[in-house]
């Protein structure tokens, strides 16, 4: 099991982006991490996957453990080899390499690389193309395939829907759901699109200002007044408030972050 206990992350040793976050990610389940921009979701996910020295970020408090082993001081490539794979929010594929090279790069065996084209036939058609020329959805699919090439137990997925049309997002989420079920993967999904994430998640955490402010099953969260109002776009009375985003942000911060 992947666990975060009171994790604190700071950039440049001074700017705290994650403050005492504790998560329990159940094996074989999909857990969603929700929140608005700047809530600390991506930093949390990146902390699990390990920081590089050049990223000027580090876990300054708490512990991250995977199957009882501390991983918060490990190099990213070692964490990847332990079975935790990240699909990052941006720069998720190697643009200058072909699709085939992107796939081969992380494959543990040649057979495994060939198997991925059976699982994702669209990538087989694109194998010779330079990854930088793929569409957003195709890049996301390639990124997912690359993460799977390392044969992970835990898949960390950051903003699958970023910059994509709703229909492409829906296709990708259903693809993710299929992969999760077929492989019995543990998935930690970071999403701003709360409604889409809650549809496929077994459990969810909500972050605000670097802290976890709510957690529960999708059913429980979808019946929670604040979540409905701030993330699903309707108030308890059923009115839509999308045009009052700033007002909602102010109210959310005042209510949750004190």
């Amino acid at each position: 099991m992947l666990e975060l206990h009171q994790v604190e992350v700071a950039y440049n040793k001074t700017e705290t982006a994650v403050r005492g976050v504790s998560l329990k990610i159940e094996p074989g389940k999909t857990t969603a991490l929700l929140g608005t921009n700047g809530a600390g979701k991506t930093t949390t996910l990146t902390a699990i996957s390990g920081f590089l020295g050049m990223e000027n970020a580090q876990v300054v408090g708490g512990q991250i453990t995977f199957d009882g082993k501390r991983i918060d001081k490990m190099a990213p490539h070692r964490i990847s080899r332990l079975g935790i794979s990240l699909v990052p929010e941006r720069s998720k594929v190697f643009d200058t390499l072909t699709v085939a090279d992107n796939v081969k790069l992380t494959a543990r065996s040649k057979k495994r690389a060939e198997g991925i084209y059976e699982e994702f036939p669209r990538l087989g058609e694109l194998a010779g193309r330079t990854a930088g020329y793929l569409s957003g959805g195709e890049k996301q699919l390639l990124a997912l395939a690359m993460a799977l090439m390392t044969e992970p137990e835990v898949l960390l997925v950051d903003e699958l829907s970023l910059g994509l049309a709703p229909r492409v997002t829906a296709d990708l989420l259903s693809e993710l759901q299929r992969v999760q079920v077929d492989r019995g993967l543990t998935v930690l999904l970071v999403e701003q699109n709360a409604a889409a994430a809650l549809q496929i998640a077994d459990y969810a955490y909500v972050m605000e200002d670097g802290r976890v402010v709510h957690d529960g099953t999708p059913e429980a969260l979808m019946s929670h007044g604040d979540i409905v109002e701030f993330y699903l776009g309707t108030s308890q009375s059923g009115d839509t408030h999308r045009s009052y985003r700033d007002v909602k942000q102010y109210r959310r911060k005042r209510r949750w972050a004190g």
Partner: protein
Amino acid sequence: MDVSLFVDTLKLAGVYVMLAVGFVIVYRTSRVLNLAQPGIVLLGGYLALTLLPRETYSDARFWGVAAVLVLGGAAVGLALYVLLLRPMAGESRISQVLMTLAALFLIEAVVEARWRGQSGFVQLPGQSTSWEFLGSNVRLVDVVPVIVSVLVLSALALFYRFSPSGVQMRAVAENPALAARRGINIERAGAIAWGLATALGVLAMFLVSTQGSVSPLLVGTAIKGFTVALVAGLDSLGGLVPAALLVASAEVVVVRFLDPQLGEAVPYVVLLAVLVVKPWGLAGTREELDRV
């Protein structure tokens, strides 16, 4: 047709490619300008001078010493990376570049202390071999830099295109954070790059010594290689060939038809002219300019 003009240009271009390739390999993988590279060339030159005295020279000894020095060059590159650069991960690029500059000054100081500015020629196999070609005398040592540079660039192109380590190094060059999270050991990629670059720096020294003596001025010659790397675009191996041909042809023409004393300034004039027109070099990528 003046064949010697053609031969002089090609051999000088071959030497420049070999002096420049080390800068490009390191930069592509670790985004650091390795200013210690001229020091490696200098140190290699003086060690060759010491280990290959004229009195005991034999071709067999030359090849043995060359192999040891090239491997030693790789070891020095690895040591520079592990001891100086790796601990500085996360520091600013300029700090890392300054570290390599400090390493250059240190190597120069050590060479000065040990060899006291002496100069001499490294004897090479087949030094007296030459042929008549279209009325000109073409020496073996004039052809060797061309052959070696073509072989090295071809081998590097194949390495980066087809070998798993080469593809991984391209991935690290493009996005080290993603590469690390895909399970690639980026420190191993960096170590390979530094070792390879400094080994090729020592090899380049042998090619430089086909053209002249080993002396403290070798650093200046190696810096011309840096100039060629900048003209090429710093992250472009493919750009090295046109860049080296451009710099070498301009230098040969100036030396031959204008004033030999002006030859030393030509690479820098070419660099300034290219940077004015294409700040990212002949074949470099625009983004690289922002990263430096």
